[in-house]
Protein backbone atom coordinates (compact mmCIF):
# COMPACT_ATOMS: atom_id res chain seq x y z
CA UNK A 1 0.00 0.00 0.00
CA UNK A 2 1.46 3.29 -1.03
CA UNK A 3 1.94 5.98 1.56
CA UNK A 4 0.39 8.88 -0.26
CA UNK A 5 1.70 12.27 0.75
CA UNK A 6 -1.48 14.27 0.18
CA UNK A 7 -1.56 17.99 0.86
CA UNK A 8 -3.75 17.35 3.87
CA UNK A 9 -1.33 14.94 5.46
CA UNK A 10 1.49 17.36 4.78
CA UNK A 11 -0.53 20.06 6.56
CA UNK A 12 -0.96 17.76 9.54
CA UNK A 13 2.75 17.01 9.74
CA UNK A 14 3.70 20.67 9.44
CA UNK A 15 1.29 21.80 12.17
CA UNK A 16 2.50 19.10 14.52
CA UNK A 17 6.11 19.98 13.74
CA UNK A 18 5.36 23.63 14.43
CA UNK A 19 3.85 22.85 17.82
CA UNK A 20 6.79 20.69 18.79
CA UNK A 21 9.13 23.44 17.65
CA UNK A 22 7.38 26.00 19.86
CA UNK A 23 7.46 23.61 22.77
CA UNK A 24 11.17 23.11 22.29
CA UNK A 25 11.66 26.85 22.16
CA UNK A 26 10.00 27.29 25.53
CA UNK A 27 11.66 24.34 27.18
CA UNK A 28 15.21 24.85 25.93
CA UNK A 29 16.18 27.57 28.44
CA UNK A 30 15.03 25.35 31.26
CA UNK A 31 16.85 22.36 29.85
CA UNK A 32 20.00 24.43 29.53
CA UNK A 33 19.63 25.55 33.12
CA UNK A 34 18.98 21.99 34.20
CA UNK A 35 22.08 20.76 32.46
CA UNK A 36 24.16 23.55 33.89
CA UNK A 37 22.96 22.89 37.43
CA UNK A 38 24.46 19.45 37.30
CA UNK A 39 27.91 20.55 36.27
CA UNK A 40 30.74 20.23 38.77
CA UNK A 41 34.40 21.33 38.63
CA UNK A 42 36.35 20.44 35.43
CA UNK A 43 33.20 19.57 33.47
CA UNK A 44 32.08 16.60 35.55
CA UNK A 45 28.49 15.91 36.54
CA UNK A 46 27.61 16.45 40.17
CA UNK A 47 24.45 16.64 42.20
CA UNK A 48 26.19 18.30 45.11
CA UNK A 49 24.92 21.64 43.83
CA UNK A 50 21.48 20.65 44.93
CA UNK A 51 22.68 20.21 48.46
CA UNK A 52 22.78 23.97 48.65
CA UNK A 53 19.04 23.91 48.11
CA UNK A 54 18.60 22.20 51.43
CA UNK A 55 21.47 24.10 53.00
CA UNK A 56 21.96 27.79 52.57
CA UNK A 57 19.02 28.20 50.21
CA UNK A 58 16.59 26.59 52.59
CA UNK A 59 15.66 29.82 54.35
CA UNK A 60 15.00 31.55 51.06
CA UNK A 61 12.63 28.84 49.95
CA UNK A 62 10.91 28.92 53.32
CA UNK A 63 10.44 32.66 53.11
CA UNK A 64 8.98 32.29 49.65
CA UNK A 65 6.49 29.74 50.89
CA UNK A 66 5.63 31.82 53.93
CA UNK A 67 5.02 34.98 51.94
CA UNK A 68 2.98 33.00 49.40
CA UNK A 69 0.83 31.42 52.09
CA UNK A 70 0.10 34.72 53.82
CA UNK A 71 -0.64 36.43 50.52
CA UNK A 72 -3.00 33.68 49.37
CA UNK A 73 -4.83 33.77 52.66
CA UNK A 74 -5.29 37.52 52.54
CA UNK A 75 -6.36 37.30 48.91
CA UNK A 76 -9.00 34.72 49.77
CA UNK A 77 -10.35 36.66 52.72
CA UNK A 78 -10.92 39.70 50.51
CA UNK A 79 -11.81 38.02 47.22
CA UNK A 80 -14.49 35.60 48.45
CA UNK A 81 -16.88 38.24 49.80
CA UNK A 82 -15.91 40.69 47.01
CA UNK A 83 -16.73 38.13 44.33
CA UNK A 84 -20.04 37.28 45.93
CA UNK A 85 -21.02 40.94 46.23
CA UNK A 86 -20.07 41.65 42.63
CA UNK A 87 -22.08 38.78 41.22
CA UNK A 88 -25.12 38.54 43.49
CA UNK A 89 -25.90 42.10 44.50
CA UNK A 90 -27.15 44.85 42.20
CA UNK A 91 -25.37 48.16 42.50
CA UNK A 92 -24.31 50.83 40.04
CA UNK A 93 -20.81 51.00 38.64
CA UNK A 94 -20.11 47.27 38.76
CA UNK A 95 -18.19 47.13 35.52
CA UNK A 96 -16.02 50.09 36.39
CA UNK A 97 -15.33 48.67 39.82
CA UNK A 98 -14.34 45.32 38.41
CA UNK A 99 -12.04 46.95 35.85
CA UNK A 100 -10.46 49.06 38.57
CA UNK A 101 -9.85 45.96 40.67
CA UNK A 102 -7.91 44.37 37.82
CA UNK A 103 -5.64 47.40 37.34
CA UNK A 104 -2.64 45.96 39.24
CA UNK A 105 -2.15 43.53 36.38
CA UNK A 106 -1.49 46.39 33.99
CA UNK A 107 0.89 48.44 36.09
CA UNK A 108 4.59 47.65 35.62
CA UNK A 109 6.28 46.03 38.60
CA UNK A 110 8.86 48.74 38.99
CA UNK A 111 6.17 51.40 39.10
CA UNK A 112 4.33 49.48 41.80
CA UNK A 113 7.58 49.08 43.67
CA UNK A 114 8.44 52.78 43.70
CA UNK A 115 4.89 53.76 44.55
CA UNK A 116 4.86 51.38 47.49
CA UNK A 117 8.19 52.61 48.83
CA UNK A 118 6.84 56.14 48.72
CA UNK A 119 3.63 55.07 50.44
CA UNK A 120 5.19 52.97 53.12
CA UNK A 121 8.19 55.09 53.99
CA UNK A 122 7.27 58.63 53.20
CA UNK A 123 3.51 58.76 53.67
CA UNK A 124 3.05 56.39 56.55
CA UNK A 125 6.58 56.39 57.91
CA UNK A 126 6.41 52.63 58.32
CA UNK A 127 9.55 50.63 58.63
CA UNK A 128 9.64 47.87 56.11
CA UNK A 129 8.07 44.76 57.58
CA UNK A 130 6.92 41.45 56.31
CA UNK A 131 3.37 42.71 56.21
CA UNK A 132 4.35 45.48 53.87
CA UNK A 133 5.63 42.83 51.50
CA UNK A 134 2.54 40.67 51.93
CA UNK A 135 0.21 43.61 51.27
CA UNK A 136 2.15 44.48 48.15
CA UNK A 137 1.87 40.91 46.92
CA UNK A 138 -1.83 40.79 47.78
CA UNK A 139 -2.63 43.86 45.74
CA UNK A 140 -0.65 42.51 42.83
CA UNK A 141 -2.32 39.09 42.77
CA UNK A 142 -5.82 40.12 43.83
CA UNK A 143 -7.25 40.29 40.27
CA UNK A 144 -5.99 36.78 39.64
CA UNK A 145 -7.79 35.50 42.70
CA UNK A 146 -10.95 37.49 42.07
CA UNK A 147 -11.56 36.68 38.41
CA UNK A 148 -11.86 32.86 38.60
CA UNK A 149 -14.09 33.23 41.65
CA UNK A 150 -16.35 35.66 39.80
CA UNK A 151 -16.46 33.37 36.78
CA UNK A 152 -17.34 30.37 38.94
CA UNK A 153 -20.07 32.32 40.74
CA UNK A 154 -21.60 33.57 37.52
CA UNK A 155 -21.81 29.99 36.31
CA UNK A 156 -23.55 28.88 39.48
CA UNK A 157 -27.33 29.02 39.02
CA UNK A 158 -28.95 31.01 41.78
CA UNK A 159 -31.55 28.25 42.14
CA UNK A 160 -29.07 26.34 44.31
CA UNK A 161 -28.91 29.11 46.88
CA UNK A 162 -32.66 29.67 46.75
CA UNK A 163 -33.29 25.94 47.21
CA UNK A 164 -30.96 25.85 50.21
CA UNK A 165 -32.65 28.84 51.80
CA UNK A 166 -36.11 27.41 51.29
CA UNK A 167 -34.90 24.21 52.95
CA UNK A 168 -34.01 26.17 56.04
CA UNK A 169 -30.37 27.20 55.59
CA UNK A 170 -29.40 30.72 56.66
CA UNK A 171 -27.38 32.84 54.25
CA UNK A 172 -24.20 31.87 56.07
CA UNK A 173 -25.02 28.17 55.97
CA UNK A 174 -25.97 28.45 52.32
CA UNK A 175 -22.64 30.01 51.54
CA UNK A 176 -20.46 27.45 53.31
CA UNK A 177 -22.44 24.31 52.49
CA UNK A 178 -23.52 25.01 48.94
CA UNK A 179 -21.78 27.97 47.29
CA UNK A 180 -18.26 27.45 48.61
CA UNK A 181 -17.95 23.75 47.66
CA UNK A 182 -19.40 24.40 44.23
CA UNK A 183 -16.97 27.20 43.41
CA UNK A 184 -14.05 25.18 44.83
CA UNK A 185 -12.42 24.68 41.45
CA UNK A 186 -12.68 28.43 40.78
CA UNK A 187 -11.03 29.18 44.10
CA UNK A 188 -8.28 26.67 43.34
CA UNK A 189 -7.64 28.36 40.01
CA UNK A 190 -7.22 31.64 41.84
CA UNK A 191 -4.90 30.03 44.36
CA UNK A 192 -2.80 28.49 41.62
CA UNK A 193 -2.39 31.69 39.61
CA UNK A 194 -1.62 33.77 42.66
CA UNK A 195 0.84 31.22 43.99
CA UNK A 196 2.81 31.12 40.75
CA UNK A 197 3.06 34.90 40.67
CA UNK A 198 3.99 35.42 44.30
CA UNK A 199 6.41 32.53 44.49
CA UNK A 200 8.40 33.80 41.53
CA UNK A 201 8.08 37.52 42.13
CA UNK A 202 11.29 39.50 42.57
CA UNK A 203 10.84 43.03 41.24
CA UNK A 204 8.43 44.49 43.77
CA UNK A 205 10.10 42.36 46.44
CA UNK A 206 13.31 44.13 45.60
CA UNK A 207 11.75 47.44 46.59
CA UNK A 208 9.81 46.58 49.70
CA UNK A 209 11.35 43.57 51.37
CA UNK A 210 12.44 43.90 55.00
CA UNK A 211 16.18 43.54 55.58
CA UNK A 212 16.14 40.00 56.98
CA UNK A 213 13.76 38.57 54.43
CA UNK A 214 15.16 37.28 51.17
CA UNK A 215 12.84 35.19 49.06
CA UNK A 216 14.17 32.58 46.65
CA UNK A 217 13.83 34.62 43.45
CA UNK A 218 15.41 37.59 45.16
CA UNK A 219 18.31 35.42 46.27
CA UNK A 220 18.85 34.19 42.74
CA UNK A 221 18.75 37.75 41.46
CA UNK A 222 21.28 38.93 44.05
CA UNK A 223 23.61 36.00 43.45
CA UNK A 224 23.65 36.50 39.72
CA UNK A 225 24.34 40.18 40.21
CA UNK A 226 27.25 39.61 42.53
CA UNK A 227 28.75 36.23 41.78
CA UNK A 228 27.74 35.60 38.19
CA UNK A 229 25.98 32.44 37.08
CA UNK A 230 27.08 29.64 39.39
CA UNK A 231 25.87 26.07 39.07
CA UNK A 232 24.55 26.28 42.61
CA UNK A 233 22.45 29.30 41.71
CA UNK A 234 21.21 27.35 38.73
CA UNK A 235 20.26 24.54 41.08
CA UNK A 236 18.10 26.92 43.13
CA UNK A 237 16.51 28.29 39.98
CA UNK A 238 15.77 24.77 38.76
CA UNK A 239 14.16 23.89 42.08
CA UNK A 240 11.94 26.96 41.92
CA UNK A 241 10.94 26.08 38.39
CA UNK A 242 10.10 22.52 39.38
CA UNK A 243 7.96 23.65 42.31
CA UNK A 244 5.94 25.94 40.04
CA UNK A 245 5.71 23.25 37.40
CA UNK A 246 4.34 20.64 39.78
CA UNK A 247 1.82 23.07 41.22
CA UNK A 248 0.42 23.73 37.75
CA UNK A 249 0.50 20.05 36.84
CA UNK A 250 -1.34 19.07 39.99
CA UNK A 251 -4.00 21.69 39.35
CA UNK A 252 -4.67 20.61 35.79
CA UNK A 253 -4.73 17.00 36.84
CA UNK A 254 -7.42 17.62 39.42
CA UNK A 255 -9.52 20.40 37.92
CA UNK A 256 -8.86 20.64 34.19
CA UNK A 257 -8.78 23.93 32.34
CA UNK A 258 -12.34 25.10 32.81
CA UNK A 259 -11.86 27.53 35.64
CA UNK A 260 -9.08 29.53 34.09
CA UNK A 261 -11.20 31.06 31.35
CA UNK A 262 -11.59 34.81 31.61
CA UNK A 263 -8.24 35.25 33.26
CA UNK A 264 -6.61 35.70 29.86
CA UNK A 265 -4.08 33.05 30.73
CA UNK A 266 -5.98 30.26 29.05
Amino acid at each position, binding site marked *: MKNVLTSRRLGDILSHAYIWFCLLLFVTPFLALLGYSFSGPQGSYAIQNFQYVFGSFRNNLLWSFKISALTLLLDLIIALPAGYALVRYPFPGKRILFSALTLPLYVPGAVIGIALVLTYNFTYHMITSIWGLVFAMTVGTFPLMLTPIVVALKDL*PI*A*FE*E*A*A*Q*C*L*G*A*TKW*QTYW*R*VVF*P*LIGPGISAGLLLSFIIVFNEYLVTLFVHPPGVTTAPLRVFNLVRTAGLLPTTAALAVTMQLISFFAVLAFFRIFGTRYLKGTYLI
Partner: protein
Amino acid sequence: MSRVNLSSVTKHYGQTVAVHEFNLDVPDGEFITLLGPSGCGKTTTLRMIAGLIEPTSGHIYFDEQEVTYLPPPARNIGFVFQTPALFPHLSVSDNIAFGLSVKGQKKEMIQGRIDQMLALVNLSDYGKRMPAQLSGGQQQRVALARVLATDPRVLLFDEPLSALDKNLRDTLKYSILDLQRKTHKTAIYVTHDQSEAFAISDRIVVMNAGRIEQIGTQTDIYLHPQTPFVAEFIGANNSLVGKVTQVKDTNETSRVAVMAEGLTLYSNGRISLKEGDSVLAYIRPENIIILNDLEGREYENVVEGVIDRVIFEGATAQLRVDVAGREFRADVSGSQRLTLIQRHGKVRLGFNEVTLIPVSKDVSP
Protein backbone atom coordinates in the same frame (compact mmCIF):
# COMPACT_ATOMS: atom_id res chain seq x y z
CA MET B 1 -50.65 21.91 57.48
CA SER B 2 -51.15 25.64 57.38
CA ARG B 3 -53.72 28.01 56.09
CA VAL B 4 -52.24 30.59 53.78
CA ASN B 5 -53.69 34.06 53.51
CA LEU B 6 -52.63 36.86 51.17
CA SER B 7 -54.01 40.30 51.87
CA SER B 8 -53.69 43.03 49.24
CA VAL B 9 -50.26 41.77 48.27
CA THR B 10 -48.71 44.07 45.70
CA LYS B 11 -45.34 44.08 43.95
CA HIS B 12 -43.98 46.98 41.94
CA TYR B 13 -40.74 46.97 39.98
CA GLY B 14 -40.24 50.66 39.43
CA GLN B 15 -43.18 51.69 37.26
CA THR B 16 -44.16 48.12 36.36
CA VAL B 17 -46.86 46.48 38.42
CA ALA B 18 -46.07 42.79 38.60
CA VAL B 19 -48.78 41.89 41.11
CA HIS B 20 -51.73 44.11 42.04
CA GLU B 21 -53.76 43.80 45.26
CA PHE B 22 -53.68 40.02 45.40
CA ASN B 23 -56.20 38.60 47.88
CA LEU B 24 -56.44 34.90 48.48
CA ASP B 25 -57.38 32.55 51.27
CA VAL B 26 -56.12 28.98 51.03
CA PRO B 27 -57.61 26.59 53.58
CA ASP B 28 -55.42 24.01 55.22
CA GLY B 29 -54.72 21.03 53.00
CA GLU B 30 -56.03 22.54 49.76
CA PHE B 31 -54.25 22.11 46.43
CA ILE B 32 -54.63 25.45 44.68
CA THR B 33 -53.10 26.42 41.34
CA LEU B 34 -52.16 29.82 40.01
CA LEU B 35 -52.85 29.60 36.29
CA GLY B 36 -52.05 32.19 33.67
CA PRO B 37 -49.89 33.16 30.69
CA SER B 38 -46.22 34.10 31.01
CA GLY B 39 -45.71 37.37 32.77
CA CYS B 40 -49.04 37.36 34.59
CA GLY B 41 -47.42 37.54 38.02
CA LYS B 42 -48.04 34.00 39.20
CA THR B 43 -44.37 33.16 39.81
CA THR B 44 -43.80 36.53 41.48
CA THR B 45 -46.70 35.83 43.83
CA LEU B 46 -45.38 32.36 44.63
CA ARG B 47 -41.95 33.74 45.40
CA MET B 48 -43.44 36.30 47.74
CA ILE B 49 -45.21 33.49 49.58
CA ALA B 50 -41.83 31.75 49.80
CA GLY B 51 -39.99 34.84 50.95
CA LEU B 52 -37.60 34.97 48.01
CA ILE B 53 -39.12 38.33 47.06
CA GLU B 54 -40.47 41.02 49.39
CA PRO B 55 -43.85 42.51 48.54
CA THR B 56 -44.11 46.25 48.02
CA SER B 57 -47.19 46.27 50.21
CA GLY B 58 -49.70 43.85 51.66
CA HIS B 59 -49.53 40.99 54.13
CA ILE B 60 -49.00 37.27 54.01
CA TYR B 61 -50.06 34.95 56.82
CA PHE B 62 -49.43 31.30 57.57
CA ASP B 63 -52.25 30.42 59.98
CA GLU B 64 -52.17 33.32 62.42
CA GLN B 65 -48.51 34.17 61.95
CA GLU B 66 -47.56 37.09 59.75
CA VAL B 67 -44.68 36.01 57.53
CA THR B 68 -44.61 38.91 55.08
CA TYR B 69 -41.02 39.92 55.72
CA LEU B 70 -39.64 36.69 57.16
CA PRO B 71 -36.71 35.22 55.22
CA PRO B 72 -37.31 31.82 53.61
CA PRO B 73 -35.39 29.73 56.17
CA ALA B 74 -37.73 30.94 58.90
CA ARG B 75 -40.96 30.07 57.10
CA ASN B 76 -40.72 26.25 57.09
CA ILE B 77 -41.82 25.85 53.51
CA GLY B 78 -41.00 23.45 50.68
CA PHE B 79 -40.21 24.99 47.31
CA VAL B 80 -39.93 22.86 44.18
CA PHE B 81 -38.28 24.68 41.30
CA GLN B 82 -38.57 24.26 37.58
CA THR B 83 -35.13 22.66 37.53
CA PRO B 84 -34.62 20.08 40.27
CA ALA B 85 -31.70 22.14 41.67
CA LEU B 86 -30.24 19.14 43.45
CA PHE B 87 -26.89 20.02 44.99
CA PRO B 88 -24.40 18.41 42.58
CA HIS B 89 -21.71 17.84 45.18
CA LEU B 90 -23.99 15.85 47.52
CA SER B 91 -25.41 12.36 47.09
CA VAL B 92 -29.15 11.75 46.83
CA SER B 93 -29.30 10.88 50.53
CA ASP B 94 -27.32 13.96 51.53
CA ASN B 95 -29.55 16.11 49.37
CA ILE B 96 -32.65 14.78 51.09
CA ALA B 97 -30.99 15.19 54.47
CA PHE B 98 -29.95 18.79 53.77
CA GLY B 99 -32.93 20.51 55.33
CA LEU B 100 -32.57 18.48 58.48
CA SER B 101 -28.81 18.73 58.79
CA VAL B 102 -28.80 22.52 58.57
CA LYS B 103 -31.09 22.50 61.60
CA GLY B 104 -28.43 20.54 63.45
CA GLN B 105 -29.89 17.05 63.45
CA LYS B 106 -27.43 14.18 63.60
CA LYS B 107 -26.90 11.89 60.64
CA GLU B 108 -27.98 8.73 62.48
CA MET B 109 -31.31 10.24 63.43
CA ILE B 110 -31.85 11.56 59.94
CA GLN B 111 -31.23 8.20 58.28
CA GLY B 112 -34.68 6.86 59.10
CA ARG B 113 -36.31 9.91 57.61
CA ILE B 114 -34.19 9.66 54.45
CA ASP B 115 -35.24 6.05 53.92
CA GLN B 116 -38.87 7.02 54.48
CA MET B 117 -38.65 9.80 51.90
CA LEU B 118 -36.92 7.62 49.34
CA ALA B 119 -39.66 5.03 49.71
CA LEU B 120 -42.30 7.75 49.31
CA VAL B 121 -40.97 8.65 45.86
CA ASN B 122 -40.12 5.08 44.88
CA LEU B 123 -36.37 5.59 44.78
CA SER B 124 -35.38 3.36 47.69
CA ASP B 125 -32.07 2.08 46.32
CA TYR B 126 -30.84 5.38 44.96
CA GLY B 127 -29.49 6.87 48.16
CA LYS B 128 -25.82 6.67 47.33
CA ARG B 129 -26.07 7.93 43.77
CA MET B 130 -25.06 11.41 42.69
CA PRO B 131 -27.59 13.73 41.03
CA ALA B 132 -25.73 13.66 37.74
CA GLN B 133 -26.43 9.94 37.47
CA LEU B 134 -30.20 10.41 37.57
CA SER B 135 -32.67 11.17 34.80
CA GLY B 136 -34.70 14.40 34.80
CA GLY B 137 -37.77 12.70 36.22
CA GLN B 138 -35.78 10.95 38.94
CA GLN B 139 -34.11 14.20 39.89
CA GLN B 140 -37.44 15.93 40.25
CA ARG B 141 -38.66 13.10 42.46
CA VAL B 142 -35.59 13.47 44.69
CA ALA B 143 -36.36 17.21 44.80
CA LEU B 144 -39.83 16.31 46.05
CA ALA B 145 -38.39 13.98 48.70
CA ARG B 146 -35.99 16.71 49.72
CA VAL B 147 -38.67 19.28 50.43
CA LEU B 148 -40.93 16.81 52.20
CA ALA B 149 -38.14 15.64 54.53
CA THR B 150 -38.34 18.82 56.60
CA ASP B 151 -42.11 18.44 57.10
CA PRO B 152 -42.93 21.91 55.79
CA ARG B 153 -46.15 23.79 56.49
CA VAL B 154 -46.79 24.73 52.88
CA LEU B 155 -45.62 23.23 49.59
CA LEU B 156 -44.86 25.61 46.75
CA PHE B 157 -44.39 24.48 43.15
CA ASP B 158 -42.99 26.70 40.41
CA GLU B 159 -43.87 24.96 37.12
CA PRO B 160 -42.00 21.82 38.26
CA LEU B 161 -42.92 19.79 35.19
CA SER B 162 -42.28 22.18 32.31
CA ALA B 163 -38.73 20.94 31.80
CA LEU B 164 -39.84 17.33 31.38
CA ASP B 165 -41.20 15.49 28.35
CA LYS B 166 -44.93 14.91 27.95
CA ASN B 167 -45.19 11.34 29.18
CA LEU B 168 -43.19 12.10 32.28
CA ARG B 169 -45.29 15.16 32.95
CA ASP B 170 -48.47 13.13 32.82
CA THR B 171 -47.29 10.54 35.34
CA LEU B 172 -45.39 12.88 37.62
CA LYS B 173 -48.25 15.32 38.10
CA TYR B 174 -50.36 12.57 39.63
CA SER B 175 -47.40 11.59 41.83
CA ILE B 176 -47.29 15.15 43.10
CA LEU B 177 -51.03 15.11 43.82
CA ASP B 178 -50.69 11.74 45.48
CA LEU B 179 -47.92 12.96 47.78
CA GLN B 180 -49.89 16.03 48.67
CA ARG B 181 -52.91 13.99 49.59
CA LYS B 182 -50.85 11.54 51.62
CA THR B 183 -49.03 14.23 53.58
CA HIS B 184 -52.09 16.52 53.95
CA LYS B 185 -50.07 19.59 53.14
CA THR B 186 -51.36 22.86 51.74
CA ALA B 187 -50.02 23.16 48.21
CA ILE B 188 -49.75 26.19 45.97
CA TYR B 189 -48.88 25.30 42.40
CA VAL B 190 -47.93 27.59 39.52
CA THR B 191 -48.34 26.64 35.87
CA HIS B 192 -49.32 28.01 32.48
CA ASP B 193 -50.56 24.59 31.36
CA GLN B 194 -54.31 24.46 31.64
CA SER B 195 -54.67 20.67 31.48
CA GLU B 196 -52.10 20.26 34.25
CA ALA B 197 -54.01 22.70 36.44
CA PHE B 198 -57.31 21.02 35.72
CA ALA B 199 -55.97 17.54 36.45
CA ILE B 200 -54.72 18.07 39.98
CA SER B 201 -56.16 21.20 41.59
CA ASP B 202 -58.92 21.64 44.12
CA ARG B 203 -59.30 25.24 43.03
CA ILE B 204 -57.73 27.41 40.38
CA VAL B 205 -56.79 31.09 40.43
CA VAL B 206 -56.73 32.47 36.90
CA MET B 207 -54.33 35.41 36.64
CA ASN B 208 -53.63 37.99 34.00
CA ALA B 209 -51.32 41.01 34.02
CA GLY B 210 -50.78 40.92 37.77
CA ARG B 211 -54.44 40.60 38.68
CA ILE B 212 -56.79 37.80 39.65
CA GLU B 213 -59.38 37.20 36.98
CA GLN B 214 -61.35 34.46 38.69
CA ILE B 215 -61.01 31.95 41.50
CA GLY B 216 -62.97 28.73 41.33
CA THR B 217 -63.07 25.02 40.66
CA GLN B 218 -62.47 23.60 37.22
CA THR B 219 -66.18 23.50 36.46
CA ASP B 220 -66.71 27.04 37.76
CA ILE B 221 -64.04 28.41 35.50
CA TYR B 222 -64.89 26.41 32.44
CA LEU B 223 -68.67 26.58 32.50
CA HIS B 224 -69.14 29.96 34.17
CA PRO B 225 -66.26 32.29 33.26
CA GLN B 226 -66.70 35.69 34.84
CA THR B 227 -64.37 37.76 32.70
CA PRO B 228 -63.59 37.81 28.98
CA PHE B 229 -60.02 36.76 29.73
CA VAL B 230 -61.10 33.60 31.54
CA ALA B 231 -63.62 32.77 28.81
CA GLU B 232 -60.91 33.01 26.17
CA PHE B 233 -57.89 31.64 28.05
CA ILE B 234 -59.60 28.51 29.36
CA GLY B 235 -60.46 26.19 26.50
CA ALA B 236 -61.49 27.49 23.14
CA ASN B 237 -64.36 29.89 22.62
CA ASN B 238 -66.28 31.82 20.01
CA SER B 239 -67.07 35.39 20.98
CA LEU B 240 -69.48 38.05 19.79
CA VAL B 241 -70.04 41.61 20.93
CA GLY B 242 -73.61 42.50 21.67
CA LYS B 243 -76.24 44.41 23.62
CA VAL B 244 -78.99 43.10 25.84
CA THR B 245 -82.38 43.71 24.24
CA GLN B 246 -84.73 41.91 26.61
CA VAL B 247 -84.63 40.44 30.08
CA LYS B 248 -87.28 38.03 31.38
CA ASP B 249 -86.78 37.07 35.01
CA THR B 250 -88.04 33.81 36.41
CA ASN B 251 -87.41 32.42 39.88
CA GLU B 252 -84.00 30.89 39.28
CA THR B 253 -82.67 32.35 36.09
CA SER B 254 -83.25 35.18 33.72
CA ARG B 255 -83.78 34.63 30.03
CA VAL B 256 -81.81 37.25 28.20
CA ALA B 257 -82.05 38.20 24.56
CA VAL B 258 -78.96 39.70 23.00
CA MET B 259 -78.44 41.40 19.66
CA ALA B 260 -74.92 40.56 18.57
CA GLU B 261 -73.46 41.40 15.18
CA GLY B 262 -76.70 40.85 13.39
CA LEU B 263 -77.67 37.70 15.26
CA THR B 264 -80.26 37.34 17.97
CA LEU B 265 -79.13 35.03 20.75
CA TYR B 266 -80.86 33.81 23.87
CA SER B 267 -79.11 32.93 27.09
CA ASN B 268 -80.22 31.66 30.47
CA GLY B 269 -77.97 33.74 32.59
CA ARG B 270 -77.05 33.62 36.22
CA ILE B 271 -75.78 37.16 36.38
CA SER B 272 -78.13 40.08 36.59
CA LEU B 273 -78.32 42.08 33.41
CA LYS B 274 -80.43 45.04 32.34
CA GLU B 275 -81.67 46.00 28.93
CA GLY B 276 -79.07 48.01 27.11
CA ASP B 277 -76.07 46.41 28.85
CA SER B 278 -73.08 45.68 26.66
CA VAL B 279 -72.04 42.07 26.76
CA LEU B 280 -69.73 39.57 25.19
CA ALA B 281 -71.50 36.39 24.13
CA TYR B 282 -69.47 33.18 24.24
CA ILE B 283 -70.25 29.84 22.65
CA ARG B 284 -67.86 26.93 23.17
CA PRO B 285 -67.00 24.86 20.09
CA GLU B 286 -68.32 21.66 21.66
CA ASN B 287 -71.66 23.36 22.30
CA ILE B 288 -72.26 23.95 18.61
CA ILE B 289 -74.37 21.22 17.01
CA ILE B 290 -74.73 20.62 13.27
CA LEU B 291 -78.43 20.38 12.50
CA ASN B 292 -80.05 18.69 9.58
CA ASP B 293 -83.11 20.27 8.00
CA LEU B 294 -85.59 18.64 10.33
CA GLU B 295 -83.88 19.28 13.62
CA GLY B 296 -83.54 22.48 15.50
CA ARG B 297 -86.85 22.97 17.18
CA GLU B 298 -85.48 22.33 20.63
CA TYR B 299 -82.70 24.84 20.15
CA GLU B 300 -83.33 28.46 20.96
CA ASN B 301 -80.30 29.55 19.05
CA VAL B 302 -80.12 28.44 15.44
CA VAL B 303 -77.99 30.14 12.85
CA GLU B 304 -77.05 29.47 9.27
CA GLY B 305 -73.59 29.43 7.89
CA VAL B 306 -71.16 28.15 5.29
CA ILE B 307 -68.37 25.66 6.11
CA ASP B 308 -64.96 27.12 5.32
CA ARG B 309 -62.74 24.31 6.54
CA VAL B 310 -62.95 20.86 8.05
CA ILE B 311 -59.96 19.72 10.13
CA PHE B 312 -60.17 16.03 10.92
CA GLU B 313 -58.41 15.43 14.26
CA GLY B 314 -59.30 11.79 14.82
CA ALA B 315 -61.72 11.68 17.71
CA THR B 316 -63.14 15.05 16.73
CA ALA B 317 -63.40 17.21 13.68
CA GLN B 318 -62.85 20.94 13.89
CA LEU B 319 -65.07 23.04 11.67
CA ARG B 320 -64.60 26.63 10.65
CA VAL B 321 -67.98 28.03 9.74
CA ASP B 322 -68.74 31.45 8.33
CA VAL B 323 -71.80 32.85 10.09
CA ALA B 324 -72.88 36.36 9.12
CA GLY B 325 -69.34 37.31 8.29
CA ARG B 326 -67.85 35.88 11.46
CA GLU B 327 -65.77 32.72 11.67
CA PHE B 328 -67.06 30.22 14.21
CA ARG B 329 -65.19 27.18 15.41
CA ALA B 330 -67.28 24.10 16.05
CA ASP B 331 -66.02 20.78 17.40
CA VAL B 332 -67.92 17.75 16.16
CA SER B 333 -67.54 14.20 17.42
CA GLY B 334 -69.43 11.02 16.83
CA SER B 335 -70.44 9.82 13.41
CA GLN B 336 -71.16 13.32 12.16
CA ARG B 337 -67.48 14.11 12.03
CA LEU B 338 -67.04 11.53 9.31
CA THR B 339 -69.89 12.66 7.08
CA LEU B 340 -68.76 16.26 7.16
CA ILE B 341 -65.40 15.60 5.57
CA GLN B 342 -67.16 15.00 2.32
CA ARG B 343 -69.78 17.64 2.59
CA HIS B 344 -69.03 21.32 2.38
CA GLY B 345 -71.35 24.18 1.97
CA LYS B 346 -74.32 25.41 3.92
CA VAL B 347 -75.11 24.21 7.44
CA ARG B 348 -77.47 25.04 10.20
CA LEU B 349 -75.89 25.37 13.64
CA GLY B 350 -77.59 25.05 16.97
CA PHE B 351 -76.03 26.50 20.10
CA ASN B 352 -76.37 24.46 23.25
CA GLU B 353 -75.38 27.24 25.59
CA VAL B 354 -74.53 30.89 25.31
CA THR B 355 -72.52 32.47 28.12
CA LEU B 356 -72.82 36.21 28.63
CA ILE B 357 -70.21 38.37 30.28
CA PRO B 358 -70.97 42.02 30.89
CA VAL B 359 -68.36 44.47 29.74
CA SER B 360 -67.84 48.20 29.90
CA LYS B 361 -68.85 50.12 26.80
CA ASP B 362 -65.38 50.61 25.38
CA VAL B 363 -64.36 47.02 24.81
CA SER B 364 -63.45 45.99 21.29
CA PRO B 365 -64.47 42.60 19.81
